[in-house]
């Protein structure tokens, strides 16, 4: 505690003697540099504030209010009514949570491992690997409308591929994969996995390319077989990529929206939290307070993996 005080006193004492020299030593930046730096920090900060912080804080604020979206003076406090609606009254909320959890479980158990498997297979120098990569990555690049049509062609009860293969197409026993609420979540999850696996594959392939080949060489010299090399050497060496993939899987399952929206606007067994936020915030059906409360719930849930990821990233850097 005492050292800085001494230093401070020192500065004050010396201020009369040679201030310009001192200052120049502390700031090696010209005025121009400072302006440039200032602008470079201010603009992103402003963008960040306008696009992220202000909307976030406004949403949190509005989730405790009632507002018809017209005059700002009409915003009135509403206590916990909106949250009561979310947790107790809305019959869609708990199914939506359950569906998001199912989404996470499905992607974690099937989607992501499938992407890893594809990446590992395509990383072997097999012939035509680039063609396969393109094929598996294709779904990530397709527009949603197109994805909706593609899966409609597969799942349609009248003339869809799946019912055709089952021999039930066009009959009364045909399964309406998107319309039957006991199966449509799984049908949608298959479609989502189709997209997700390609995404994970590309990320993981990039990670695999970055693994030092001498590691594999060393492990094979030590007599490890292919499986051991992968699980004991390559996989641990890819820890940073693995963390990113875990985070992406979690985030993907939380922000899942597009596919169910294309199917039936996220109703009839395909309710998701993101859909509820949109239902109550966009368009004619807007009820701002309730929509904000749904959004805040989703935000709080999303913060968990984000905080874990960030704390991990920063702690690694400190080390």
């Amino acid at each position, binding site marked *: 505690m005492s050292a800085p005080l001494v230093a401070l006193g020192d500065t004050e004492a010396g201020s009369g003697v040679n201030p310009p020299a001192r200052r120049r030593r502390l700031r090696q930046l010209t005025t121009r540099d400072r302006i440039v730096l200032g602008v470079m920090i201010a603009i992103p900060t402003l963008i960040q504030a306008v696009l992220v912080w202000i909307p976030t804080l406004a949403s949190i604020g509005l989730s405790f209010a*009632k*507002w*018809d*979206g*017209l005059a700002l003076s009409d915003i009135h406090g*509403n206590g916990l*009514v*909106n949250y*009561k*609606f979310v947790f*107790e*009254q*809305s*019959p*869609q909320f708990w199914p939506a949570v359950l569906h998001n959890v199912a989404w996470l479980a499905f992607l974690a158990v099937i989607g992501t491992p499938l992407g890893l498997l594809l990446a590992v297979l395509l990383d072997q120098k097999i012939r035509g690997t680039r063609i396969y990569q393109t094929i598996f990555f294709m779904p990530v690049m397709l527009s*949603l*409308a197109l994805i*909706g049509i593609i899966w409609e062609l597969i799942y349609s*009860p009248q003339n869809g591929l799946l019912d055709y293969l089952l021999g039930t197409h066009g009959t*009364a026993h045909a399964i*309406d994969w*998107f*319309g*039957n*609420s006991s199966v449509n979540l799984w049908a949608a999850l298959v479609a989502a996995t189709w997209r997700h696996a390609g995404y994970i594959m590309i990320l993981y392939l990039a990670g695999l390319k970055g693994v030092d080949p001498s590691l594999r060489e060393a492990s094979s010299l030590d007599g490890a077989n292919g499986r051991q090399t992968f699980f004991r050497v390559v996989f641990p060496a890819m820890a940073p990529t693995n963390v990113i993939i875990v985070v992406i899987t979690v985030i993907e399952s939380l922000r899942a*929206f*597009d596919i169910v*929206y*294309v199917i*039936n*606007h996220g*109703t*009839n067994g395909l309710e998701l939290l*993101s859909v509820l936020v*949109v*239902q*109550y915030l*966009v*368009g*004619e*059906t*807007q*009820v*701002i*307070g*309730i929509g904000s409360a749904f959004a805040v719930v989703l935000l709080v849930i999303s913060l968990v993996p984000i905080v874990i990821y960030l704390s991990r990233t920063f702690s690694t850097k400190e080390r």
Partner: protein
Amino acid sequence: MAETGSGRFIMDRRSIVKGLGLGAVGLISAPVLAACSSGGSGGGSGSGGGGGSLTFGSNASDPVPKKAYAAFVAAFEKKSKDKVTVNTSDHNSFQDKITNYLQGSPDDAFTWFAGYRMRYYAKKGLVADVSDVWTKIGSNFSDALKKASTGEDGKQYFVPNYNYPWGFFYRKSFWAQNGWSVPGTFDELVTLAKKMKAKGIIPIAFTDKDQWPACGTFDYLNMRINGYQFHVDLCAHKEGWDTPKVQEVFTTWKELLPYYDPNAAGLTWQEGATKVGNKQAGMMLLGSFITQQFTDPAVLNDIDFFPFPAVKVEGTDAVEAPIDGLMLSKKGGQNQAAKDMLAFMGTGAGQEAYYSVDKSNIMTAKDADTSGYSAFTKKLADVIANAKSISQFFDRDALPAMAANVLEPAMLNFIKGGNINLTNIEAQAKTLYAQQ
């Protein structure tokens, strides 16, 4: 998706582009669009007899209605010598951005619907009172139409253009061949459905993938059991949902469930209409826009209509016939040319100009020339003309969030399982209506 192309009535407004990105773009672009549109209205105010100008915001983005409104505007310009600048927006986004639109710098006149939202914006003072227009055109409309154009304060805010009735549609020849006759009461309807089921067809092509079609059955049963006024009060949440009256609606409805298409939850109305068209289904309750689906003239000419049968009270007095028309923004209320255009919409000449292009609806003005109507259209028109009260659709008569987020999902569950939790619906309704 299939739904975006075809029906431009409720269909289109329900396939709302709620996608997050698009929604955001819509929100951002709303003020921009509104700003663009405000340009032309400068010199119009107070000019009266010609030479004025106004801007007109139209949601008629589909080809036929767009041309129809162009014909209407041309007829008005010719008659009044006023200059109209038309700003057409996409049907769905117009609907989604309406709140921003009215608060920004809206056009003088714009297309809208009768119902809750009309009364709501009137109450909030975002639209102009057109009672003075109604003193000119009032005699040209039935009382039911006037009631539908009136806000909570008793003043008029809306001028009807056209409407289209909801009812049962079926194939005449198919029914004649089987000796089926039009049911006049609910019991007769159930008996008929039973006969049809025994014949191995789907008696009632009920389709609820888009969720809003179920509102038609709910509204009719509610009005036939509890009366028109109860429908209005329930939509405004002046009546509660957890009451024996609403319970009776669902109890009655349950009698129909065995006669619905078992795949109702996954089907669109277009698919249902097709089943009626090729005799897989006996009948279907829908708006008269169902006829758009029958592209084969032989089928189209074979389609007939009957009103929802009487159940308990008021016979078949009430008809569900959503009305589309014009309103004035607050600014437009100062512009005589804009008022003149609304008055012109209230005349036969104005409505005929629109109808000359878009023939899928019923003109609402009494002096409109209906000699061009087919026998079928005439029948539809008579049902509306003879109605004692005209309801809109539940999602037009009630708070949109109540309709789309609460009742429609609940009704879909009811269709699937026959259960409805009215206590929960009442709880949600309380919270939602309290926020308006």
